[in-house]
């Protein structure tokens, strides 16, 4: 099995290429089968691999060929497989398979069905390469690959300019992070002479002291990449807009897999981060800040997908917090559980949107509980997990993060409290969503409930969202063991109770209406604040003024080529001389004679050195 690990990314890739080349000639059913089966096979192979790994706990390193070899720079097309990889691969192929299956029904009517699956398969392949890469350059290949697939899929419905805009925004904003990350790669290679992750970490530990400058800079650059890809502050703005893509795409890329690549990157290179405590602190602070910011924003959103998008940002903030405080496995654990429940929620919202004729506004839904039972239960379970209600998968992972954060010296309790606030908000907004959409009176009549191809993935994901918290992720070998100490019990109790309080608040406001916040909302401060949160803290507006507009302005100013003006000036000078001399060429003989005499005088003056006497 270990020798054929390369088949896992290859199969979706081949399927993708096939779909691109021959998609127009295949029947819809064939396309669906090809698209789903390829990922299915990959998932199956991953499963086999997992079984094998569970038995022998053996790390696999497989090098296919040397990508390039220049002056000692010799990254390979080579894979590295350990527990962390396994977790990621399982999520990708497993959740990916479910989402593919879901898509076959969701996208059935779309004329570009083949293109859709081609992109989606391509994405899976790229994502697999990302997580399986043995060196940072190959990881970067996957990293950019998923970026492009994300771009393609966000802008899948290219006829609408807004989608194109969102897609470009997604790509370019993440590219900013990616470029910083590339610089990090350059720095790491220049300093350590390799980009192989394992060798590099080893080399780094030999070369650098903890807290030295260079690893800090390198880690911060990597963090920039992670921040971009995982939509953390300050590069998170693309994610809400990326909801323009088909909903299964949002589920796969913008919830379950790609956006968590940053988390994976930091976890994968944790060996470096341990050398750079400053960077880790930065990660933690970025994480918790993002988490809170996004949670507040999610509270105000009305678009169902945007709520989920901000919630994703918020949840990834938790993962960053985990990474920042050194709770590596908690972070990865949350990554996994989040993949389950957030995919579930997205697919659920997809089902709603699908059945409600592309309605996104939650206040135009309502009362769907009875009409779409499968979806309702999916949402219930998903939201419970998202809110980290006890015994759901989200509970276990988030709990771990908060507890470990608390234990951090100095800023630990602060982080913990902020985390709690976030958890409270999460509970509020997730159940606001549930209450508004599924209870109350119906505003729109759905066509039907979901078909089996949508129902099955939802059900499986429900299950996973429920029980996912009981999984043991095999990463103990990968990360350094935590010290195992536990904080005081009250901390734990508080952590458990906060989400429940949140759900209650949501219930009071949005279901029973006992708690009337209209006054609060309609007060000046409330309105302003609401508006502020709705707009995502004005960050988009701010960026637009600070970067986008000036760049457009610059491009517009330069469009006429100021440099060319210099050459234009040269031309003008020549033309001026031409003009003067042409005027002198008047055709009058007397004038010609005068010029000759003047010339003669000049020549005599110079030749006989007369100027010396005159001057």
């Amino acid at each position, binding site marked *: 099995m270990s020798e054929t690990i390369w088949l896992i990314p290859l199969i979706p890739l081949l399927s993708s290429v096939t779909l691109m080349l021959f998609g127009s000639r295949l029947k819809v059913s064939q396309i669906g089968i090809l698209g789903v089966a390829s990922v299915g096979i990959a998932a199956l192979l991953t499963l086999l691999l997992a079984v094998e790994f569970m038995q022998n706990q053996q790390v696999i390193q497989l090098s296919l060929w040397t990508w390039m070899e220049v002056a000692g720079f010799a990254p390979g097309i080579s894979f590295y497989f350990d527990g962390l990889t396994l977790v990621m691969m399982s999520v990708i192929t497993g959740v990916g398979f479910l989402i593919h299956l879901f898509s076959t029904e969701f996208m059935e009517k779309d004329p570009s069905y083949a293109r859709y699956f081609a992109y989606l398969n391509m994405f899976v392949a790229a994502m697999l390469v990302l997580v399986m890469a043995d060196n940072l350059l190959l990881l970067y290949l996957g990293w950019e690959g998923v970026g492009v697939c994300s771009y393609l899929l966000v802008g899948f419905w290219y006829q609408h300019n807004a989608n194109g805009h969102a897609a470009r925004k997604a790509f370019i904003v993440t590219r900013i992070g990616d470029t910083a990350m590339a610089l990090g790669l350059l720095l790491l290679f220049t300093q350590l002479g390799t980009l192989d992750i394992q060798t590099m970490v080893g080399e780094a530990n030999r070369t650098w002291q903890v807290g030295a400058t260079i690893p800090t800079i390198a880690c911060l650059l990597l963090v920039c990449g992670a921040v971009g890809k995982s939509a953390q502050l300050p590069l998170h703005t693309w994610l809400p807009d990326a909801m323009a893509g088909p909903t299964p795409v949002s589920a796969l890329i913008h919830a379950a897999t790609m956006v968590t690549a940053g988390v994976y990157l930091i976890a994968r290179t944790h060996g470096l981060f341990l050398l750079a405590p400053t960077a880790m602190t930065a990660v933690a602070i970025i994480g918790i800040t993002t988490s809170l910011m996004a949670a507040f924003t999610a509270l105000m959103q009305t678009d169902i997908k945007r709520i989920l998008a901000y919630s994703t940002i918020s949840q990834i903030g938790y993962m960053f917090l985990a990474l920042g405080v050194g709770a590596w496995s908690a972070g990865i654990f949350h990554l996994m559980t989040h993949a389950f429940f957030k995919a579930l929620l997205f697919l659920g919202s997809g089902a709603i949107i699908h059945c409600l004729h592309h309605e996104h506004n939650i206040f135009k839904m309502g009362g769907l509980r009875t009409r779409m039972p499968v979806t309702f239960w999916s949402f219930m379970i998903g939201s419970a997990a998202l809110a980290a209600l006890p015994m759901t998968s989200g509970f276990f992972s988030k709990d771990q993060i908060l507890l470990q954060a608390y234990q951090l010296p100095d800023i630990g309790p602060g982080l913990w409290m902020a985390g709690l606030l976030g958890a409270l908000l999460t509970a509020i907004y997730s159940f606001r969503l549930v209450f508004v959409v599924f209870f109350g009176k119906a505003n729109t009549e759905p066509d039907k409930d979901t078909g089996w191809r949508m129902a099955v993935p939802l059900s499986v994901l429900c299950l996973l969202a429920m029980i996912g918290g009981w999984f043991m992720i095999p990463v103990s070998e990968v990360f350094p063991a935590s010290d195992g100490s536990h904080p005081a019990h009250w901390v734990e109790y508080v952590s458990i109770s906060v989400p429940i309080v949140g759900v209650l608040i949501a219930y009071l406001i949005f279901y029973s209406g006992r708690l009337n916040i209209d006054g609060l909302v309609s007060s000046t401060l409330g309105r302003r604040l609401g508006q502020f949160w709705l707009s995502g803290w004005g960050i988009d507006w701010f960026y637009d003024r600070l970067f986008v507009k000036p760049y457009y302005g610059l491009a517009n100013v330069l469009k006429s080529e100021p440099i060319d003006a210099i050459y234009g000036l040269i031309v003008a000078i020549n033309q001026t001389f031409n003009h003067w001399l*042409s005027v002198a*060429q*008047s*055709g*009058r*003989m*007397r004038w010609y*004679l*005068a010029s000759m*005499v003047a010339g003669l005088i000049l020549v005599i003056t110079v030749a006989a050195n007369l100027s010396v006497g005159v001057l």
Partner: protein
Amino acid sequence: MDGLNIPLNHILLVSSLLFSIGMLGLMIRRNIIFILMSLEVMLNAAALAFVAAGAHWGQPDGQIVFMLILTVAAAEVAVGLGLVLQVQKRFKTLDMDHANRMQG
């Protein structure tokens, strides 16, 4: 007859004055006939300078060049006056400022 002790530079002074006057005439006159006359003055000035220099060195060469200048002057004037006739015929004027159809 023997020559006299006339300083060379005095003769050259006269010739340069003649040359300059001829040049001036050339530049200010518009009538082609006067222009040709001015040219003769200039050539004559050069001839004077040659003869003087020849006399200065006691060589016949100066006078030979003078003779050749005469020849040149004759030939030029012959053709020049031929052109004058044509100018009068085709331009109906001898004003050279009118002969400026080509310019630029």
